């Protein structure tokens, strides 16, 4: 049963610490998305990759967030330094390019205290 896998599922960290979230997309998918979900803002697109190349990261605070795809089986989202306002559920999703359905992982619930 193919699925997007995200780790960790939950993360509690102190303000100022570095946080790394990982995502394993579904094998064969060439597009990977990072979304953030909060009560206030809803689901926001942070960045996405096509064939491992970053295509759009305009939704990310550039000074503290970075997203990479070291290889086709791993996408990472890093926050350094973390702040309480970064507390949210971060979803990774994968799919094929060209307006097709995206499959979401179970998310990483991040709490920054």
């Amino acid at each position, binding site marked *: 049963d193919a699925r997007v896998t995200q780790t960790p599922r939950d993360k509690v960290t102190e303000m100022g610490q570095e946080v790394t979230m990982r995502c394993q997309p579904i094998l064969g998918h060439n597009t990977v998305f990072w979304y953030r979900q909060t009560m206030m803002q809803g689901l926001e697109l942070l960045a996405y990759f096509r064939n491992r190349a970053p295509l759009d990261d305009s939704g990310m605070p550039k000074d503290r967030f970075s997203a990479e795809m070291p290889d086709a089986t791993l996408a990472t989202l890093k926050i350094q330094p973390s702040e309480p306002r970064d507390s949210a559920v971060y979803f990774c999703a994968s799919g094929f*390019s060209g*307006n097709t359905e995206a499959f979401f992982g179970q998310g990483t619930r991040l709490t920054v205290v």
Partner: protein
Amino acid sequence: QQPVQSPQAVILREGEDAVINCSSSKALYSVHWYRQKHGEAPVFLMILLKGGEQKGHDKISASFNEKKQQSSLYLTASQLSYSGTYFCGTSGGGADGLTFGKGTHLIIQP
């Protein structure tokens, strides 16, 4: 620009119908509909790519009025399993990433 969904919330009895609307202030290339249950990931429902296109499966269908930059999701004879938050996501063309509306909370009561 985030699409606007209406209503924000709706409570129905099992078997009743519901319509959820999604409108955008900018030209739409496609509209995607997802459903999310509490504590779970969003799950894909359908994509509409052409103006006037209507799609559906089971008792959930959708329409896309490209001219009015609007889409509507129709839930017919709702079932308890339809409860959740429904999101529309839009793209402006050429890009795969979606801009989602704030969601419509749907509660189905027995």
